[in-house]
Each structure stands twice: as C-alpha cells, then as structure tokens.
C-alpha cells in the first residue's frame, strides 16, 4: 500500500520513563511490551507491568500519541495462556495496536479482539507480497514491519503490490540475520529471541581478563577479544569476531548501527507509512535525543527538504560507533 499522508514516527520505550520521554520528544507512536517472555526484548528489569502500560497509554493519549504493544515472541507449546493474556490485557488497556509474529497470537487477536489493530512484527519475517497478503487475509493485519533485508527499491515495488501499510526501521541496533528465523543464541546459550525474547542472554555473558586482554564470552564461546584499554562491546553473537578460511574478523557484521536517516525522503517516495526507531533496551537519554532529532528530520522531509538538509539535522546523532544504511542500499549484501 502506498500512502501519501504524513509519515508516522514509531519510537521505543523499555520503561514508563522512556515512554514519557518519547512522547515529550515528539513520537507519533510508542511501542513497548510486557515484563515477561511475550515480548522480544525480555531483559531483566525492562518493560511494563499491566498497570504501567495502562498508565502509559493514558499519558500517551493525553498528549496525542499512540501506543503499540509488542507481543512478538512465539507462544510456548502447552502453555499459550501467557500470550493470550498479554493480548487480552493490551486490548483492555486500550492499546492502539498489537504487534505480533506468532500465528497463535495473530489468530487469537483476530478472533477475540477484531476491533484492535494488528501489526505484523518484523519477527514474522514477511518480505513478499504473497506472505504479507496471507497475513492480511487470514488475520486482517493492517501493517507489516518490514524485515531489514529489503532495499528501498524493493520496498517501493512491494508497496505497489500489497494492501497493508509498511513500517521500516530507520535507526538503532541492526540484526544482520533475518529476524524471527535465527537460533544462534539458543545454539550457544540455550535461550533465543523466538523462545524467550532474549538474544545473547546476559546471564551467560562473561568478560574474562587474561594476558592478551579481555575475552567477551557467551556461554563459554569467545565472541570477541579486546586489547587492554580497548573499548569493549556486548557479546551479541552476530556482531563478534571469528575465524573462517584464513581470515579473522567481523564475519557477519561490523560493529555498526543502522542510521537510514538520509533515506527518509526515499522511504516516503517508496510509500512507507511509518518509520521505526530501535532501542527498547536503551535509556531515556538516548530516546529523547534520537526521537527529537528524527522528529525534526521527518518534519523537514514532509516539508519537502532534501536529503542533505536532513543529514545535517541528524549529524549530531552518532554515538561514536560507525553507522550503516544496511540493506536499504543494495551494496550491503
């Protein structure tokens, strides 16, 4: 579906204070999840209780923003009730949409809460007109969060062939694997995004010092090594350094984060409805800064400013790490 309206800025909140920060910084929508394994950012101390969600939705609505609730892991066999309850609670709290990936959750929403908007999570990895069409027909899904493997040209072509809205990631952490179809984490450490809402789980992380510096390990597997004093990183599996053939290095992805801010105008031309910022595990300082900058950038794009001017607005956003436009430019592949 190619939309011509104002692009929606969808922003992350891992805590109620981050939700308030995002609303105040100009988010059109905030996405968040419950403090359990029903959402794909199930980290200790993060996310919302049902009461916090209800309060957060009231706060957002009072300020003209929407709240999208992510129930985007896969329900556990023989114990699907927590996922159904999460869906029921989100609907009861007045969520503006539920973001889901599991057919069990989508089916429950479509049959029990037909009045609540349904968005297809990136974890469903729906990238073709046939796949998206299936979810639209079977569950009345209204928007699909696009897998981060499509180029902007492919998104434009896709939008001409589908009847639902599209949402594209513009900023934040970058999964190099197709999300929802990656079991690297459970292979090494026993817990995974699909099963537990966690990738490279913190309880399996260790930083071990030896003569050569620090080894960042996940469940005993060395994911990266740092010389003494060298900035360390969290040992996310696909961002580590490994050996293959006669080479050693970042085999899967360099330690970069996504910044497709320069492509906002192209996204609009491609018919994208909503732009998504990643980072529910990030603090409110990050949320405020990034949302504020993207608010300005999206408004500038809507007013017809060109990519260079938008680049200038977003120039201060780098956190010191390197950035990439990811798959949106074909060269990434």
């Amino acid at each position, binding site marked *: 579906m190619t939309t011509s309206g104002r692009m929606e800025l969808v922003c992350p909140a891992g805590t109620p204070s981050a939700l308030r920060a995002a609303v105040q910084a100009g988010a059109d929508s905030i996405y968040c999840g419950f403090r359990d394994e029903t959402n794909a950012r199930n980290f200790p101390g993060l996310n919302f209780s049902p009461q916090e969600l209800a309060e957060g939705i009231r706060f957002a609505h009072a300020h003209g923003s929407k709240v999208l609730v992510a129930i985007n892991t*896969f*329900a*556990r*066999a*023989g114990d699907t009730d927590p996922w159904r309850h999460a869906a029921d609670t989100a609907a009861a709290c007045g969520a503006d949409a539920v973001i889901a990936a*599991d*057919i*069990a959750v989508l*089916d429950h929403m479509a049959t029990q809460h037909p009045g609540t908007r349904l968005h297809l999570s990136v974890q469903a*990895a*729906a*990238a*073709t*007109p*046939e*796949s998206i069409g*299936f*979810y639209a*027909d079977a569950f009345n899904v209204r928007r699909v969060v696009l*897998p*981060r*493997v*499509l180029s902007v040209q492919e998104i434009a072509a896709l939008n001409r062939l589908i009847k639902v809205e599209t949402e594209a990631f513009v900023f934040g952490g970058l999964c*190099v*694997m*197709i999300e*929802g*179809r*990656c*079991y*690297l984490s*459970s*292979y*090494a*450490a*026993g817990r*995974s995004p*699909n*099963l537990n809402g966690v990738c490279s789980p913190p309880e399996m992380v260790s930083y071990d010092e030896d003569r050569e510096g620090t*080894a960042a390990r996940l*469940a*005993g*597997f*060395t*994911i990266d*090594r740092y010389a003494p004093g060298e900035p360390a990183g969290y040992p996310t599996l*696909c961002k*580590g*350094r*490994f*050996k*293959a*053939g006669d*080479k050693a290095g970042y*085999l*899967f*992805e360099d330690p970069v984060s996504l910044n497709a801010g320069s492509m906002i105008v192209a996204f609009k031309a491609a018919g994208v409805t909503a732009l998504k910022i990643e980072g529910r595990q990030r603090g409110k300082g990050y949320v405020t800064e990034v949302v504020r900058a993207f608010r300005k950038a999206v408004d500038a794009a809507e007013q017809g400013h060109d990519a260079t001017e938008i680049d200038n607005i977003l120039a201060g956003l780098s956190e010191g790490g390197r950035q990439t436009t990811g*798959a949106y430019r074909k060269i*990434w*592949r």
Partner: protein
Amino acid sequence: MARVALTLGPLFFHWPAERLRNFYFRIADETSLERVHVGEVVCGKRMPFSDPVWPEIIERLERGGKEVVLSTLAAPATVRERKAIAELCADGRLVEINDITALPARSGRPFVTGPFLNVYNEATARFLARHGAATICPPVELSLDTVGTIAGACPEVGFELFAFGRLPLALSGRCYHARLHGLHKDSCQFTCEQDPDGLAVDTLDDQPFLAINGVQTLSAQIHSLLVEPAELAARNIRRLRLSPHGCDMVEVARTYRDLVEERQDPEGARFVLSCLELPGTLVDGYAHGLAGSQLAARA
C-alpha cells in the same frame, strides 16, 4: 508401536550438478529411506545450476520406491524466486513450505512445513493443519518434549524431527561467502561451491562454533538425535529427518534404520556415526531442552 519413518531432508549446500546426480542416484538405489526431499532451499541464485538435473533425480528416486517431496526456498526475494515457488506448489507431489510465501499457493492441498517455518505451539500447528499441513518438521531449537506436546494436541499431523546434520541456525539477506571473499552478493562467483559442508567458523580462541553456507549460518557441530524408538512413539513423532552432508549418507541412513528398527541402541548408533568422516563433533542439546551446542547423551 508405529514404525518411525526416515526422511532425507533438502540439501543445504551448493553441490555441482554431477555430484547431485551421483549422490541422489546412490540414495535411490542403496537406501531404504521412505522420503527424499529435492530442490534448493537456501539460495535462489543456485537454482539454474541444479534445476536441469532434478527431473532425472526425481525419476530415479521414485523408481527406487522413495516418496519425493519438492522443497521450496526459505527466503524468497526476487520475482523469479517467487515464481519458482508458485510453480512447485502447483505440482501433484508433496511440497515442503519453508516460508509463508508458499502458503497461499498451496493452501488446501497437502504440504510439509520445514524447520524454517515458525511452528512453536499447537495453535499454530492446528492452524496450518487446517490449511493442509500433513507433516510438520518444527524449528530445530524445540525440544523432544515440546514437539511431543504439540504433536499430542495435533494428531492429524505427522511430526518429523531434525535428527542428523549441521543445524540450520540462521538466514540473512547478506551472503557470507561473498563477504568473506570480498565479493558482492550479486556477483558472488558461487564461492560457496568450494565448501560442500559449509565453511567452518571458529572463535578467536579456536573453538569450532558455526559454519557458513552462502546466506545461511549452520552449527559447526553435527546434531544427532539418537533415542530409543519408544521415546519417539510416546511423543507421537513419526519421522526422523536426516540432512545431507558430504559424509557417507548411505551409512548414516543405515545407522538410523538400525536404530528405529531396534537393531542398534543409541550408544551403538552414536559410535557408528562418530566413525564416519563428519565435519563436526556430535551434539544433541536441543532435543533435551539444552543449548544446541551441548551433548546431553552420555558420550
């Protein structure tokens, strides 16, 4: 007790046409496998190389008494790849769906779902069964007990477990073979052909860890589910899936046959497998609810 059947899953690796022909002819002639999957699932760019040999392979397999399943791409992207899926879905033979893309074209007629499709619970399994799922091979990270729970709630579907081979762990939009060789995916020169079992990925401390195969990432270790057939029957699991590798797959198939016919116990089967030239050590953690890289069974 219902007999546990054996399936040869789709080949993940890029083998030259001649090797494909020799391999499947031998499978057709020298194994007692009930089902054999054919077709490319990992990379659509490889299809022009293998497409010409599949018809004769299918014919030989069917003559050898094997039920042939046509596997489809796990991450279709181009118009050509989507068209290929639609064409395969129109075939009268059983088709394996590895992406929801194939579902609308196949809905209403029987199909197999492969481990790339996210079937994590009985509600999803029943939904797919209503659309035609006859066999479900769930994602590799699910345990034996979890699959048993789903299978118990969904008796109309035959459940199949990924039982032998490097585990398919991830897919990407990016080709790691091309990246490693400093090439672009669109002009990749098919360097993945050099690694018939995938290319080993070790940690910086030289621990064997993963393997890359074009856009796919697999485990370095060989998952081998070796349990008493009664354990499978008790969980309504009707099939075991063996994933093709460069080792002697006829011997692998014979070993699993001996296991499910109770001519060989799991310990003995593990010993026989460990004597083959495997690209990695044996693991089985996933089946027992552990990290996939672990070995739960006594070595």
